[in-house]
């Protein structure tokens, strides 16, 4: 078994007052897609912010590739090979697509930037035709593509993706998860992805953590989870078969809004 690219142990964090997440422990290995699912308000995004250095932890430890990044500043976390795509405000809106990618490669040697950009365009071909466009004027799907391309410029060892399919049309969301997110993992990086679309993300995940009420409730491979009555009961709610059907319907309803 390969060493963990990311280990978060006992992470407790919040925005002042009571912590939003308590004692959350998870790990991800290189080449793995590890998902975190759970209802709204379960603390999934807070967990990612704490790992990314955007939010201060009141307890816990974060280690990336053997380096202790507990409560390190966001720029230090980035410099340690962690690429973070927030759920909102995920691109530099006034900058062009090319400039966004250049900012993603801010830590890359100037001479290596063109090659990195070429690689990003291979992974996200549509970005190649929109390099001069202003990022703030892109569609939701294009914007997410750019946000992921931006972090790919860094060639990070860990990707942190916060609900990348939020507000995307169903087909785009599926493509993004099944093709682009899996491509990121194939670059031998660990991908930690937070999603509300449980069925869709389980389909591409190697391992999944389930959060509820700011705590980890369950974890396992997708196959293990979908066979687990506890998962069905606490996360999908109800009988397994009905719940899965409902989850699928919810996925379609959510994506249909975009």
């Amino acid at each position, binding site marked *: 078994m390969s060493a963990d690219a990311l280990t978060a142990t006992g992470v407790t964090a919040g925005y002042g007052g009571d912590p939003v997440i308590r004692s959350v422990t998870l790990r991800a290995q290189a080449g793995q897609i590890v998902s975190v699912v759970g209802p709204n308000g379960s603390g999934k995004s807070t967990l990612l912010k704490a790992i990314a250095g*955007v939010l201060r932890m009141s307890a816990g430890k974060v280690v990336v590739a053997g380096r202790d990044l507990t409560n390190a500043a966001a720029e230090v976390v980035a410099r340690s090979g962690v690429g973070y795509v927030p759920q909102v405000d995920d691109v530099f809106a006034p900058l062009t697509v090319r400039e966004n990618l250049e900012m993603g490669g801010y830590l890359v040697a100037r001479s290596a930037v063109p090659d990195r950009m070429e690689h990003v365009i291979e992974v996200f071909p549509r970005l190649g035709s929109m390099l001069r466009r202003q990022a703030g004027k892109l569609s939701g799907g294009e914007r997410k593509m750019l946000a992921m391309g931006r972090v790919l410029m860094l060639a990070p060892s860990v990707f942190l993706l916060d609900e990348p399919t939020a507000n995307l049309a169903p087909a785009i969301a599926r493509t993004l998860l099944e093709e682009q997110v899996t491509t990121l993992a194939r670059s031998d990086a660990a991908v930690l992805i937070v999603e509300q679309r449980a069925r869709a993300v389980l389909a591409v995940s190697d391992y999944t953590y389930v959060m509820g009420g700011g705590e980890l409730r369950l974890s396992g491979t997708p196959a293990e989870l979908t066979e687990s009555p506890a998962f069905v009961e606490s996360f999908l709610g109800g009988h397994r078969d009905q719940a899965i059907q409902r989850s699928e319907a919810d996925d379609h309803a959510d994506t249909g809004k975009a």
Partner: protein
Amino acid sequence: MSLLLASVGFGLVTSAVLAIAAVGFTLQFAVTDVLNLAFAAVMTAGAFAAYLVNEAGASIWVAIVAAMAAGAVLSAVLNYVVYTPFQRRGAAPITLVIISLGTALIVEFGIAALAGGINVSYLMSQGKTHDLGGLILTTVQLIIIAISLVVMVGVYAMLRYTKLGKAMRATAANRMLARSCGIRAGRVIAITWGLTGALCGLAGTVFAIDVGSFNASSTDIFLILILAAVFLGGPGNAYGAMLGALVIGLGTEVSAAYIDADYKYVVAFVILLAMLAVRPTGLLGAAT
């Protein structure tokens, strides 16, 4: 017709001075999140630094460099001593505005205490007068316009083509995302205070050259024009500030040729209000 052309000439010079100040002000605001009303007081400090160097026998060019250095240092000090500590304590943007107003008074009265209330001027010639198709401008006025053009091109090139300039724009657009890209936002902000402080010192000196003589409170009213130009162009937008400076500079000086010159600052705000009624985000929006 000659009156109109003469006022356009004055307007171009005012626009040139205003553009340097407005671009510095708006860049500072965009990157640091501080609407620094002490900007004009720092301009005055720069102008006085230039005066001291000029009085000591140095040329006006050396004096301008001294003013830029003084502006950069004073702005950096204000950032470290005043604004950053308040920002770390979570001071609201409006609180910082009030703090900057207090800082402006402290700087201005400090200069007045040191320099006295007298008007001073640089030891320099205004040069020949040139008739450029009806526009009557002195050599010094042409140089002021040239300096401003060089600064505008330089700022544009820096923001568009340099790593620092792009990092400044990224930090201005989304500070947290910039940090998540590995950009040391704190360092970018510190550099921005220095750079915009240098522009502030330069603006103060060319302003003083343009008006001929100045004292510790000469830039007070100019701050109003700076704000008008910045908000007309779109706060935080350097290119908007350039455009805003041109409109406000020309608008105030041309209006002064036809109505009482005392009302030219009112004209600046009439232009601003009229434009904002049509485009509330300013001529070029809020993004740099």
